[in-house]
C-alpha cells in the first residue's frame, strides 16, 4: 500500500532527515547492500548551497543525555558540483515495499519484494532570497530532482534563523520562489521560533506544497580542562543543534500544532527511533516521518520502522482495533515491545 505525498508515489511513509544520511558515502561502506535494502521511501539530500562550504572546524559532535549536538556547518561541494557529480549517483534509487505489505505479510527476503522508485528531494539553503532563487531555478531544470526542500531553519547559520523564524519574511521568500519551479516545494521550518504554526501557515500562504519539521534545537556544550578552570565551548562551531530522543517530545508538539494549522502535508521528524514514535508523528498529523539521528545507531532504522508501520496497519485491520477502550497500563509495554530488533 503505497503513499502519496505532493504528487509523488512512495513505498511507505519513512524518509531521511536532510544531512543525516549520505548515500554516496554509505555505498562505500555497504556496497550493493545499500541499494538493495535502501531504507527510505524518498531520499533527501543534505543541504546544498550555492558555493562550496567546508563546514565547521572539528569537534563537531557532542553527546548529551539521550541526544546529540551537531555543529557540522553544512559542508557541501556547492550547487554546481552537486548537479554534476552527486545527482547521477542519487538517481535511480529504489526501495522494497515494507515487509508486511507483501502478499504473505512475511519479513525479508526484502530482495524479492516489490520495489518502488525513491524520489530525490534536494534540500537547499541560500543566505539571501536571490541565492535561494538561483538554487531553486537550478533544481527546476533537472528531471532527476522530484522535489525541493528549503532549509530556512538551520541553527548553525544565521540566515536559517532569520528567514524561517519570522512568518512575514518566510511568506515573502517562499512566494518569490514559488513561480520559479513546478516541482513540489517543501519548507523545512525552524523549531527555534515562538510560533511554529504561524511560520507553517506563512509557508503555505507563500505557496509551499508541504512543510517539514523539526530541525535541530540550538544547543551548546562546554568543557573545562580541570576542576576550577574556566570552560570553553566544545564544538568548533561554538553552538550546534540538538537532535535525537531528547527532542522527541518537543518535535511532537510542534508537528501537532503545525498539522492542526496547515492543510498541506507535514513531514514530522525529531528523535524518531521506533515504530511507535513514527506512529505518534502520524497521529499528530504527519503524512511522512523522517529519521535522522536514529540512522546513526542503526543505518537500517528507517526500514525497521517502515516494516513496523506496515505490520501495525495489517494488525489493526485484522483485529478491528480501536474497538478496545484505552487502558493506560498497557501503553508502556506496547510501545517498548513493538519493534522487532
Amino acid at each position, binding site marked *: 500500500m503505497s503513499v502519496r505525498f505532493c504528487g509523488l508515489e512512495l513505498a511507505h511513509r519513512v524518509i531521511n532527515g536532510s*544531512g*543525516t*544520511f*549520505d548515500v*554516496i*558515502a*554509505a555505498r*562505500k*561502506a*555497504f*556496497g*550493493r*547492500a*545499500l541499494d*538493495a*535494502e535502501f531504507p527510505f521511501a524518498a531520499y533527501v539530500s*543534505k543541504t546544498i548551497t550555492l558555493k562550496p562550504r*567546508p*563546514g565547521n*572546524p*572539528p*569537534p*563537531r*559532535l557532542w*553527546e*548529551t*543525555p*539521550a*541526544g*546529540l549536538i*551537531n555543529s*557540522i556547518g553544512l*559542508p557541501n561541494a556547492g550547487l554546481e558540483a552537486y548537479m554534476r557529480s552527486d545527482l547521477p549517483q542519487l538517481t535511480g534509487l529504489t526501495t522494497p515495499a515494507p515487509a508486511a505489505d507483501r502478499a504473505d505479510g512475511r519479513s525479508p527476503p526484502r530482495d524479492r519484494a516489490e520495489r518502488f522508485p525513491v524520489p530525490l528531494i534536494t534540500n537547499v539553503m541560500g543566505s539571501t532570497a536571490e541565492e535561494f532563487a538561483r538554487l531553486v531555478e537550478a533544481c527546476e531544470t533537472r528531471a532527476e530532482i522530484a522535489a525541493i526542500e528549503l532549509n530556512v531553519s538551520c541553527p548553525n547559520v544565521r540566515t536559517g534563523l532569520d528567514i524561517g523564524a519570522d512568518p512575514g519574511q518566510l511568506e515573502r521568500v517562499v512566494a518569490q520562489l514559488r513561480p520559479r519551479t513546478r516541482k513540489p516545494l517543501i519548507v523545512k521550518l525552524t523549531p527555534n521560533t515562538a510560533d511554529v504554526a504561524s511560520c507553517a501557515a506563512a509557508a503555505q500562504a507563500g505557496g509551499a506544497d508541504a512543510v517539514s519539521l523539526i530541525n535541530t534545537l540550538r544547543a551548546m556544550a562546554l568543557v573545562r580542562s580541570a576542576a576550577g578552570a574556566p570552560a570553553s565551548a566544545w564544538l568548533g562551531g561554538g553552538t550546534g543543534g540538538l537532535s*535525537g*530522543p531528547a527532542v522527541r517530545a518537543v518535535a511532537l508538539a510542534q508537528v501537532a500544532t503545525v498539522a492542526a494549522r496547515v492543510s498541506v502535508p507535514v513531514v514530522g521528524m525529531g528523535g524518531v527511533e521506533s515504530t511507535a514514535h513514527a506512529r505518534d508523528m502520524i497521529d499528530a498529523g504527519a503524512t511522512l516521518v523522517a529519521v535522522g*539521528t536514529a*540512522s*546513526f*545507531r*542503526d*543505518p*537500517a532504522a528507517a*526500514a525497521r520502522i517502515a516494516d513496523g508501520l506496515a505490520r501495525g496497519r495489517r494488525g489493526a485491520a485484522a483485529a478491528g482495533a480501536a474497538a478496545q477502550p484505552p487502558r493506560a497500563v498497557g501503553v508502556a509495554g506496547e510501545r517498548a515491545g513493538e519493534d522487532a*530488533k
Partner: protein
Amino acid sequence: MAPFTRRRLAVTGMDELGAYRVLRVADPDAPEPDPGQFAMLAAAERWGGGDEERPYLPRAFSIARRVGAESHFLLEDVGPGSRRLCELQAGERVWLLGPLGRGFRLPPARRRSLLVGGGAGIAPLAILQDGLAGEVVVLLGFRDAARAQGAGLLDGARVATDDGSAGHHGPVTDLLAAELERDPLALVYACGPAPMLEAVRAMCAERSVPAQLALEAPMACGFGGCFGCTVARRGGGYLRVCVDGPVIDAEQLEHVDPHAGAPA
C-alpha cells in the same frame, strides 16, 4: 563491504591484557575485514543511563584480529561507552556494524613494514601484522608497564614506555627514528595518540617515507552519514575519518589534528 544493518552478536569472551581488555564476539556472518577497518559497537543492554546518561551513540573500535568466526577488539576504558563494553561478559550481546572504513594498503612485495603503535592504537596493527608477508618490525609505545602488556597482542614487538617502566624509556618515535635510519625505504604504518601520529608524520615527511596513519575521531555513525568525524585535509577542506579513513596517507595531512588520535 559491511552488511547494511547492525548485527546482534554474542560476546564469547573478555580477556585481560595488562591495562586493556580484549573483547571477543562471535560474528560468523562478518565479511573478512581489511586490516585497519573498524566496527561501531554498542552493548545490547544498558547502553545509556550511566554517568551523564551516556553513552547514547555506538562507539568505534578497530578490528584487532579475526580468528575463525570471532572478531577481537582491544578496549581501553576511557569513558562511559568503553567502560560499559569492558564490563561485558561472555553470553551478553553487542550490536556491531561493520567492518567499516578504508584500511591499510598493503606494501608492494618485499618492502619492509614498520608498524608503529601507541596505547590502544596498537589494535589495528595486530590484524595488519597477521596479513603482512614480508619483513615486519613492530614498535609500540605505552604510558607505563601495565599498558605495555598490551604489546602481547602483536608478535615480536619492541616496546617503549613514557615512564621507562618497560622497554625503551622515551617515545616510540625514538625507536622509529633508529629504524628509519637503518632502512630509509621502509613503509610506515602507524596508529596511536595524536601527538605520536604527528611526530611520525613529521618524521616520515622529512625523510620522504610513505606513511599510512590510522586516525581516530569522535564518530556518530561510522559510515559517512553525520559528517562529524572530520580532520583537516592538506590544502583545505576536511576528510571524513570513517569513509576517507580511518587509514589516511600521511601526505594528505598538513598536521594530525589533536582530536584525531587514539587514547594514549
